[in-house]
């Protein structure tokens, strides 16, 4: 079943910095780090790719059985939901039309990992979070560019 999620803004922000996605939840004061596979999945979720499309992207990039990829993705999403980093939205059936080109040489698959930190909680919770809307937030959902591989360009390479 295809499911779609988006970043739980405005309290959650994430940014891809030098190959590592750093995420903070200003509502809980926790911050997070994810790299490699987790980074890719976060960036795909941020551009509102559904799970079916994400699985196709993973299969195109990594050498692993489909059930392994699906289980790893589900576990990672469960973790993101548990920390209130993402929320579920309505699936976008148009994503079935998006073509995903397989990498010439697929890589060994490493399950996504999410590191959780609580040591700056008191500092992050100080943020007043007043009347914030999504305008200006780095992780506000980007508009999907036109073209079959458009969304993937965000994390190409």
């Amino acid at each position, binding site marked *: 079943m295809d499911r779609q999620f988006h970043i739980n803004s405005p309290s959650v*922000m994430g940014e891809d910095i030098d190959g590592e996605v750093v995420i903070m939840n200003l509502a809980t004061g926790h911050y997070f780090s994810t790299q490699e596979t987790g980074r890719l999945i976060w960036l795909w979720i941020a551009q509102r790719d559904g799970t079916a499309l994400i699985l196709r992207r993973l299969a195109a990039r990594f050498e692993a059985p489909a059930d392994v990829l699906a289980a790893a993705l589900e576990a990672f999403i469960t973790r993101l939901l548990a920390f209130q980093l993402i929320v579920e939205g309505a699936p976008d059936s148009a994503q079935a039309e998006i073509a995903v080109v397989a990498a010439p040489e697929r890589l060994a698959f490493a399950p996504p990992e999410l590191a959780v930190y609580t040591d700056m909680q008191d*500092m992050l919770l100080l943020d*007043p979070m007043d*009347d914030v809307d999504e305008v200006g937030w780095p992780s506000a959902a980007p508009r999907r560019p036109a073209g079959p591989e458009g969304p993937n360009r965000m994390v190409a390479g």
Partner: protein
Amino acid sequence: MAPMVNAAGGRGSVVSVIIPCFNAAATLPECLDSVFGQDRPPDEVLLMDDGSTDETAAIAQRYGARLRFVSQPRQGPGAARNAAVRLARGDVIGFLDADDLWPSDSLRCRLAVLEADPDVAAVTGLVEHFRAETAGRQGGRRLPPVQKVRIVCAMLVRRTVFDRIGWFDASDRLGEQFDWVARLADSGLRVAELDQIVWRRRVHDRNIGTRLRDQRGEYLHILKEMLDRRRALAG
């Protein structure tokens, strides 16, 4: 620089209070009154004006010689704090923002911890939030009334801490205190925590975090720097 005699006639610590200030005339008198009203008075109060264009200088003048007023062209709160620490004569430094207050026993209680244990580098405590009239309908709605906090405004710090971990980030980005506290946490220096309110924080429409809400992404860069630093330290 001549050595200072402290409020106890020379025995014990000399405490400098640093208040960086930018166009905070509306709240400055209440802030200063809370500092001068401490039941253990500070030995030096340094108002570091960061290019204010309001009535800050006139207000400072009303406090006479007991307030040390220094003005610099606007450089941001980190640069203002750094300049003030360099000027401060105390061996213990307390920080307060010009829109916030100290409960009357804040300095005494934190100083007692520092003086009782030479291994403690800094003392913090609880913050109590209070809403200004300008907070707006929803201002600070997510903040708990009282919370534990290690932010600079709640800390009383030995001057030597700056020799060990360095200065505040002077780039004027959001979260310069955040960066400094993270470095303090990573330094291994002991920070004691009091279970009492040491800082009363005014929530209003001009809190830096509120004004710069579209710059909160800078927090993420500070966190990234912190993670990289810790990985490097771990080898």
